[in-house]
């Protein structure tokens, strides 16, 4: 064990001092190396996705990829590589998920921060955290075994695997994310503004609608964008419950295959390294990465604006 006195002895014994300094440098370099990992991983993702999808786009034009609505990459005589079937399913499930998660999450956040008694809050917050900790595979199981059969009693023509159940389940999964981030944003609204609203004779509901939510808006928008990014990148629920049929369309009652579910579908089978099928999943993943990256950047900007506003 080196005693804290080493720093002092360094003044007297230059050799030990030099060794100690080298040791310090070495530690700092090691720690900086750990820090650099995050940059390396970021670069790694970009390079790997770009490298593997480069071969794909050498064979398939970007115009076909983004312009065609037929996705038959491994079966049939005429292979077609239009990504729209995957995209339509991704967008449909994400839209359903957001339609569930945004109102519920926002209402829950307002309830927790403005109305709930401290004791109620102490129960509901951990319960929502518990919901947030449920692995997505579990939601997938629940969607296929329980939610879909229940919905089929009410919605005629609902397929066994369908975008609706997957989207609804995803929405429930994302509620805690929206709720917790929105609550943080609402909590950051200075108390002085609540007092100003109350001092003008505004009731709590008016204050929430006209002062608190508008003041927290950039934070809430950040939460919603992040939720959208999560919905687009979510995999296991859609892989299990959405039907795994790559067909173009936005009808939530029909089966579909999202970008993520396609990657899982191909990965489950034996896909030789270097085959076109292998390359497609990288191209699809690259698209996914770009979509989520854009949303994450927007969300990041928005939440920075909230923090700046809260400081002012």
């Amino acid at each position, binding site marked *: 064990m080196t005693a804290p006195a080493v720093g002092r002895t360094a003044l007297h014994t230059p050799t030990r001092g030099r060794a100690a300094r080298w040791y310090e440098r070495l530690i700092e370099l090691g720690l900086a190396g750990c820090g650099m990992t995050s940059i390396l991983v970021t670069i790694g993702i970009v390079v790997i996705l770009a490298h593997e999808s480069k071969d794909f786009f050498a064979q398939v034009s970007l115009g076909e990829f983004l312009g065609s609505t037929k996705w038959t990459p491994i079966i049939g005589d005429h292979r077609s590589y239009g990504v729209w079937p995957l995209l339509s399913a991704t967008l449909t499930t994400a839209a359903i998920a957001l339609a569930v998660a945004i109102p519920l999450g926002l209402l829950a956040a307002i309830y927790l921060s403005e109305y709930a008694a*401290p004791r109620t809050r102490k129960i509901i917050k951990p319960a929502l955290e518990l919901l947030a900790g449920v692995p997505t595979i579990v939601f997938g199981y629940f969607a296929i075994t329980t939610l879909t059969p229940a919905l089929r009693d009410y919605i005629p023509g609902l397929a066994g695997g369908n975008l609706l159940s997957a989207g609804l389940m995803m929405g429930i999964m994302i509620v805690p994310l929206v709720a917790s981030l929105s609550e943080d944003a609402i909590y950051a609204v*200075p108390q*002085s*503004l*609540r*007092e*100003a*609203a*109350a*001092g*003008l*004779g*505004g*009731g709590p509901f*008016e*204050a929430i609608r*006209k*002062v608190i939510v*508008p*003041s927290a*808006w950039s934070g809430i928008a950040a939460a919603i964008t992040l939720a959208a990014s999560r919905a687009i990148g979510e995999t296991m629920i859609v892989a299990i419950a959405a039907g795994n049929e790559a067909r173009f369309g936005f009808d939530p009652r029909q089966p579909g295959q999202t970008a993520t579910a396609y990657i899982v579908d191909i990965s489950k089978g034996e896909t030789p390294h270097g085959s076109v099928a292998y390359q497609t999943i990288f191209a699809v993943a690259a698209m996914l990465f770009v979509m989520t990256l854009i949303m994450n950047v927007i969300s990041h900007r928005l939440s920075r604006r909230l923090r700046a*506003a809260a400081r*002012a």
Partner: protein
Amino acid sequence: MKITVKGLRASFGDHEVVKGIDLAVPSRQITAIIGPSGCGKSTFLRCLNRMHELVPGASRAGQVLLDDTDVYADDVDPVLVRRWVGMVFQKPNPFPSMSIKDNVVAGLRLTHRYDRKDAPGVIERALRQAALWDEVKDKLNDPGTSLSGGQQQRLCIARALAVNPDVILLDEPCSALDPIATARIEELLLEIRRDYTMVIVTHNMGQAQRVAEHTAFFLQGELVEFDTTAALFGNPRDPRTADYIAGRFG
């Protein structure tokens, strides 16, 4: 008398900060409350329009009569009390999500009394009363937070005036402002004193002398002395008041 306070006590948890105060606030005049920090003057003020109870753990006993109505009666809606008794706070707090003109009519919007047709007139009248109109008339759509501190505070006063209250409570409204901005606010208070009943908490004795007809001196949650401003400062009856205004403590 506009406001009559009878045996008012207020606490945070177990800590009593206002210890039984009786006070009558005259109508359409300015009444100042002075006293060292922690004497309970702000809490007292916040009891007058039931803002005190918004703080978790806060409690209160005693009566506050507005004209002849007890604002703490069982069937009173505290939100309605605050429509008659408005408030201006220590730190200027315009709504950051709103423009200057939206800030002025924010109170009307919050109380479902906003009328699109009347709005321009209301905005101009309130801003003129708050002596801010000439400075902002060309930039009514700029954010309220873009103004200087003193302008923001006058905007907050305009916002309080726009809902047409009977009483305005001012909680050290100039403590965050420089002397010039302070002087402008004092001028405007004198300007509007005949139209509203105002109670101003201040740690600035000069301010009390400049604006208030009556002054109350608070010490450790109790009312030591209440008199006309001239009498309280010129000829204090209680030795503690004399010590305080002579600067011997606080």
